[in-house]
């Protein structure tokens, strides 16, 4: 079997049992990247030499018995908004085109300490602002199921890399669905943990009160094991929470008897693609047949979630992104007259359209005279949404619904209508507003052959419950490989993808 077909945990086991070495695993990943990148473009930087060197060291540690964890020697791709020391980190933005961090993000550090090998940095929507990975300044990423479609976003590069079997797993981030939605579009699995579970230190902030780092992999087992590795209290992140129940793999049991599952009627109404709806309800039925108690209920307030989310996230972003000014690092305009002109030109040229839109929106809602009507109001809505979930979780252990209203749109369809794109986050943003954990996993295909994602939400700190439900569901259906991974001819758009590569930073990124 192809090395890259193995899940992260399976690959880790092979390395531990000396079937293959860490170096071979890394080389296999690099070979897959070489062959599939021209079609998918999931990576912004590939750490070829560094990864092989690191794999050698990890192999020695494994042989010396000093590294025995399940991820030792396993290659991993990191979303490009997580800082990696000495490895260019851009957030897919021109403004950070030359930024090489002096430190590594805590989540990545923990993976490295467990022996995982960072292969490269993945493409994303610029500063995680977008739902398609099309706002990247360095070219689009294509969906491994169909290159004419987007992989979703903003963690589109990480999800596509996993679906294309370029890497067994990746890290992504989720501010309003940025991890769960692309998982759904790419047919892979990902967990957004409870806010405060994974350190945000080194995660380049978009909406600080909503951002969480999470795992993206091909099955629930991998996700639980990876999350267990990266989750820890970190005193460098003041919003990090001290938790005792971080052994998420304990949730990996095929048993949903008596589990109370609620499906918000709000999530099944207007705007939901009928094929997606049917597939989601089918998945619910499967869980019901396995002994879960499934029923529909009214969650409420759903229509306020999107506006509240965009007000809060953009407000925070307008401040978080202020540091990108050309003074200390990153892109600075070549010619300018004085300080203000430098700020203006550097930021005008450094940021893309969607980022500028959100900075303007965010600056507006924080402006004196508007703060109360927008930002403060949004915070109140956020509190009410949390209360609605508290009520729901008094009756249900898991809330089930779609991860997105439809499957992956075609490239170029979304950016022309940003409001429509924002509405696509309807099922995911509430979990961020309420700080809840959520898991997204594949549950079927639409008639065009694109994956449909099932989302399971749990109460705060109840990751194990949703892991159990997801794992039980997963046992009922085999993993489906993307056509790109399976080596089937990509139906369309190869030539088009090739063009992107030439225009994009592929040539230069190899050297980084």
């Amino acid at each position, binding site marked *: 079997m192809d090395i890259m077909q193995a899940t992260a945990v399976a690959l880790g086991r092979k390395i531990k049992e000396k079937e293959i070495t860490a170096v071979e695993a890394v080389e296999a990943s690099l070979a897959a990247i070489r062959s599939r990148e021209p079609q998918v473009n999931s990576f912004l930087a590939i750490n070829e030499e560094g990864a092989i060197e690191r794999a050698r060291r990890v192999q020695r540690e494994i042989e010396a018995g000093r590294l025995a964890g399940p991820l030792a020697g396993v290659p991993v791709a990191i979303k490009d908004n997580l800082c990696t020391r000495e490895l260019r980190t851009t957030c897919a933005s021109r403004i950070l085109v030359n930024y090489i961090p002096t430190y590594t993000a805590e989540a990545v550090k923990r993976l490295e300490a467990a022996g995982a090998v960072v292969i490269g940095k993945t493409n994303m929507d610029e500063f995680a602002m977008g739902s398609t990975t099309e706002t990247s300044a360095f070219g689009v990423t294509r969906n491994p199921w169909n290159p004419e479609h987007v992989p979703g976003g903003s963690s589109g590069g990480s999800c596509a890399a996993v679906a294309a079997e370029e890497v067994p797993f990746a890290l992504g981030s989720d501010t309003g669905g940025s991890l769960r939605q692309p998982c759904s579009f790419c047919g892979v699995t990902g967990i957004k943990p409870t806010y405060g579970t994974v350190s945000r230190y080194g995660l380049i902030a978009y909406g600080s009160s909503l951002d969480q780092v999470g795992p993206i992999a091909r099955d629930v087992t991998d996700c639980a094991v990876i999350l267990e590795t990266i989750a820890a209290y970190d005193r460098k992140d*003041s919003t990090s929470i001290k938790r005792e129940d971080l052994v998420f793999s304990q949730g990996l049991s095929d048993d949903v008897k008596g589990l109370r599952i609620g499906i918000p009627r709000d999530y099944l109404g207007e705007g939901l693609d009928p094929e997606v709806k049917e597939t989601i309800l089918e998945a619910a039925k499967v869980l019901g047949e396995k002994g879960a108690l499934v029923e529909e209920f009214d969650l409420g307030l759903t229509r306020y979630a999107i506006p509240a989310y965009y007000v809060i996230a953009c407000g925070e972003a307008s401040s978080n992104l202020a540091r990108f000014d050309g003074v200390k690092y990153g892109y600075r305009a070549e010619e300018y007259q004085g300080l203000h002109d430098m700020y203006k030109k550097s930021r005008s040229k450094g940021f893309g359209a969607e980022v500028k839109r959100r900075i303007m929106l965010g600056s507006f809602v924080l402006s004196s005279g508007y703060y109360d009507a927008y930002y403060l109001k949004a915070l109140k809505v956020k509190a009410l949404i949390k209360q609605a979930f508290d009520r729901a979780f008094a009756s249900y252990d898991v809330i089930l619904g779609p991860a997105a209203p439809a499957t992956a749109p075609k490239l170029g369809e979304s950016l022309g209508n940003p409001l429509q794109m924002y509405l696509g986050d309807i099922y995911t943003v509430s979990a961020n507003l309420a700080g809840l954990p959520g898991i997204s996993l594949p549950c079927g295909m639409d008639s065009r052959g694109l994956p449909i994602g099932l989302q399971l939400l749990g109460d705060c700190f109840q990751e194990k419950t949703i892991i159990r439900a997801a794992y039980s569901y997963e046992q009922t259906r085999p993993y489906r490989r993307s056509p790109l991974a399976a080596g089937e001819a990509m139906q369309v758009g190869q030539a088009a993808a090739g063009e992107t590569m030439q225009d994009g930073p592929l040539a230069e990124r190899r050297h980084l």
Partner: protein
Amino acid sequence: MKNYETIIGLEVHVELATKTKIFCGCSTAFGAAPNTHTCPVCTGQPGALPVLNRQVVEYAIAVGLATHCEITRYSKFDRKNYFYPDNPQNYQISQLYLPICRNGYVEIETEQGTKQVRIHEIHMEEDAGKLIHDEWEDVSIVDYNRSGVPLIEIVSEPDMRSADEVIAYLEALRQTIQYLGASDCKLNEGSMRADVNLSVREAGSGELGTRTEMKNLNSFKAITHAIEGERARQIELLEMGRKVVQETRRWDDNKESSHAMRSKEDAQDYRYFPEPDLVPLAISEEWIEGVKARQPELRPQKLLRYKEEYDIPDYDARILTQSKHMADLFEAAVRLCGKPKKVSNWLMVECMRLLKEHEMDPEEIAFSPEHLAKLIELVDEGTINGTVAKEVFAEIFASDVDPVDYVARHDLGAVNDEGALRECVEQVLAENPQSVADYRGGKTKAMGFLVGQTMKAMKGKAAPGLVNRILKELLSD
């Protein structure tokens, strides 16, 4: 001209004396090579996050308690957004909505008696870096060593009516904060900075006039001059029938005048919002009690104790306790020599005189209590006389010399050799027959002159008691 009243409120920034910065572990030490006390947090690197220094909260609570403030049990940080290169994140983490302390007061002495200046709030925030403009190269460079140094901002109500009251308020704040050890409060080094908000109104009017804010005041002298100048400027405008414009003015110490920096119209919108990277600060009763328990003896307690324990008069005790440094010096020297009155006398007279002469603050006193104690011993055991002692004290004051060494090295020990002294006195009497006659004729004042002449002849080294005795003996003959 009408009779005008001046209304003044102050915003005072105080740099706290913590070892590390407010949101990271970098050192706050002053004077290091540029950008050596920095890390991802205080240089605004992407992804870096702030972590609150507990000691900052502790100091803020201590200052709040000492100024009779309510301590906010559920306090929060907010972001103040503005672009400037000395501010690496382009926002300052400060407190707007729920500051740590509110509704306090400071008592000051005025000509009309004791007065309370109310404190609106005290909040915690981070300092910015330092920009250096190199006009020769036409570039600006930035040093982030100061970025993230903790500050508290103490905002008063507009309760002051004159420059004297402002200085008294600042002195009172400074004393309190120094006593707490929360800051050294040096205006000239910027560890204490005061912005003055001033307006004038016709005496008796119930409404406040339009105010201006004055910045860049680096000494009490500058503050006094700025207040007087601004009061005159505003009155002149009003007398001419013009309006005072609400604006921020910058004081120029060289020109001794202020100029407008920015008006209210171009005031920035700071787009404050709750800092999402920090959790709200819950301050427990135990924490506050702990701060109270750890609080050092403050000035009012010291004043009482000095009177009771050392029998020091009230006026002297006030001067000794004006600066904590002076009070500490006094107490240490008393512990060593056990003579509070004598220590007090040296500090009150000679030390104050030298401070004034050198235009120094009591904080700048650099000599050790050991040397003052030794000096007192030398005088008491008659090794040196008062005149020499003053000379030695000046040396101690200037360069903290050891008085025993100094006296030995410069051969300043008093001449106790009665024979030699008697010879000298006889000589003086022989040279001044008129004075001798005056004395014998009942003009006892002549004695002083003869003592002086003897001392002069002995180059100041004669033991004065002995000189007196010999003179009296010989004159009564």
